[in-house]
C-alpha cells in the first residue's frame, strides 16, 4: 500500500550531478553478483539475468523496488539504500553486458505455439520482434524460465508490478496453457546478441 513517506531531504543540488559511470556500476554490482552473476548472467533458477537489459528498464525497476511499488524479499532491502546515481550506474553496467541464454528444456510444440501467441498478443510491439527489449521494456529472449513464468502468472493475477498497466492488461486474456507456451517460446530464444 502506498503510504506517504518522507525520504531523505535532497540537498539544493539534487539528482545526478554527473552522467552515469560504467566503472562505478561495475563496482556497485559486486553485491548483486551472488544472485545475478558477475556479468549479469544468473545461474540460479527463478532469478533473472540482467545482462543486456535496457538501461531504462533496470533503472525503473530499481526505483520501483526502492519506493515499494515492486516488492521482493531479497531485492527490496538491497534497493532501499540505493541512490539515484547508484541506479544509473548499475543500469548502465548491466546494459553493456553480453546476455547468454539460460538453459531450459523447452518443448518444440509449445515453442511454436508460443511464437504464434507472441505475435497474436502483440508482445513484439513493445518487446521488439526478437524480444530483445528496448527503452523501459525488458529483454525476454533467453531469460530464466521460472522467472518468466512467475512474472507472467503475476501479471495475469494482477499482482505483479507494472510500470504503466500495459502488461497487466496484456496478460488478462491468457489462459494458463498459453502462458506456458509463451514462456517456452521466450526461454527458447537465443539471447538476441550478435
Amino acid at each position: 500500500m502506498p503510504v506517504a513517506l518522507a525520504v531523505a531531504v535532497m540537498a539544493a543540488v539534487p539528482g545526478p550531478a554527473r552522467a552515469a559511470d560504467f566503472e562505478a556500476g561495475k563496482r556497485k554490482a559486486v553485491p548483486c553478483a551472488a544472485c545475478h552473476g558477475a556479468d549479469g548472467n544468473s545461474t540460479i533458477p527463478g532469478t533473472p539475468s540482467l545482462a543486456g537489459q535496457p538501461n531504462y528498464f533496470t533503472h525503473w525497476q530499481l526505483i520501483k523496488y526502492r519506493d515499494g511499488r515492486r516488492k521482493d524479499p531479497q531485492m527490496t532491502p538491497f534497493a532501499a539504500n540505493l541512490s539515484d546515481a547508484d541506479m544509473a550506474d548499475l543500469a548502465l553496467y548491466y546494459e553493456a553486458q553480453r546476455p547468454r541464454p539460460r538453459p531450459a528444456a523447452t518443448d518444440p510444440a509449445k515453442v511454436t505455439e508460443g511464437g504464434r501467441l507472441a505475435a497474436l498478443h502483440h508482445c513484439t510491439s513493445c518487446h521488439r520482434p526478437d524480444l530483445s527489449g528496448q527503452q523501459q521494456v525488458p529483454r525476454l529472449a533467453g531469460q530464466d524460465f521460472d522467472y518468466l513464468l512467475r512474472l507472467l502468472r503475476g501479471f495475469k493475477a494482477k499482482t505483479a508490478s507494472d510500470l504503466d498497466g500495459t502488461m497487466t492488461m496484456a496478460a488478462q486474456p491468457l489462459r494458463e496453457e498459453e502462458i506456458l507456451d509463451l514462456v517456452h517460446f521466450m526461454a527458447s530464444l537465443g539471447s538476441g546478441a550478435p
Partner: protein
Amino acid sequence: MRRTTLASLLVFLAVGVALVALAGAQAPPTWKQGQPANLADSTLAPIPQPPAPKAPGEIPVDKIKLPPGFKATLWAHGINNARVMTWGDKGTLFVSSRTAGNVYAIVDKGSSREVKTIAKGLNLPNGVAFRNGTLYVAEIHRITKMAGIEDKLDTPPAMEVVYETLPKDVPHGWKYLAFGPDGKLYFNIGAPCNICIPPDTHANISRINPDGSGFEYYAHGVRNSVGFDWHPETKDLYFATHGRDWLGEDVPSDRFDVAPKKGLHFGFPYCHQGDIPDPEFGKGRACGEFAAPLIKTGPHVAGNGVEFYTGAMFPAEYKNRAFLAQRGSWNRSQKIGFRVMMVTLRTGDVPKYEVFAEGWLQGGDVWGRPVYTKQMKDGSLLIADDYAGAIYRITYQR
C-alpha cells in the same frame, strides 16, 4: 431502413469490439490500438520517460526562445518526472509526477530551491490541488488529501481518502485536478483506449465536493484532457484535449475548448477536431451534434497545461491570456509541439493563437518537454518539464 439497420449493427459491433478491447483479448497495447494495417511497420511509438532527472549541465536553458524582453532561467532541477504545480498558502510549491509515483514539495530559499519528496510509490499521481491548508492528490483510482501539510513537510501526515469510486483503467487514467470557481474539485476520467466506444463512465470531465460527495459528470466526449483552467472574468471552464492517434500525420488536431455549462458533448469517439467523423465510430453520427473546438491546436501536439495569466510582471496585453503547454508529439514523423503557446480571446473575433516559448525541440532531437505552467506571486511564470525533471522560470523586463 436497411441503412439504419446496418448502422445500428456497426455500432453494436463497435461496442462489442470496444468491450473486447477492454477485456484485453488480443488487444494491442493502448498506444498501438487503432493503427491501420498499412502502418503496421511504423516505428512511431511514445517517447519513453527517462528514469532520472537531468543534471543542470544537461539542461540547455539558453535554447528556450521567448518574445523580446522575456528571459528563462533554470529555477529547480532534480525533480524526477515533474508535472503539475500548485501553490500552498505558505509559499510551498507542490509538484506531482506520473510514472515516478512521487509528490514533491519545493521550498524556495531565495537563491536556491529545496526539493522534498512528501509521498512516493503512488499510482500515477498526476493531479495536485491545494485549498485551505490541505493538499489534494489525484491518482488513477482515488483522490486523497493531506491536511496541514505545509507545517509537516519532513513528516507528512497519512493520506486520507476523499473519493475512491473511480475506474482503475490505466490508459488515460491519470488525472488533472483543480478547484473550480464553485469550490468543487474537477478532474478528468479519460477514454481507456486510443479509440473505442468508451463506457459511460469514461471520456469526461467530472467534479465532486471537496468532502467527496456530489459526484457528477460535467463535460462528455472528452478523450483525454489533463489540463484546464477557468477564465478570470467569465469563470468559464477552458480545457485542452489530446486527439486520437493513427489517423494521419496532420489529423486530427488536438483541441482547446470552452465548456460554459454542464452537459456539453465534445465529440469523442464519433467526431474529431469538430469536423472529422471517425472512420470507424463516426458512422451514423454527425459532427454538428457536438460542441466544436474553440481552437484546433495542431496534430499530435499533446496539449497539457492550461493557465490564464493574471499577473502584473508581463506586459499589459498578457492579462487574461491563456498559456497552453504542449508536451509534444510521438505519432508523427516530423515532431511538433514541445512548446508553450498563448491564446488571446477576442470578443467578436476568433482567438489569436501564437507561440510563447519554444526550443525544447532542436531539429528532430528533444531535450525537454514542457508539460504545465504555474504563475508565481510576482507574475513570473514557472514551466515544468517532466522529461528533464526541471522547472524553468520566465521573467520579463522592459
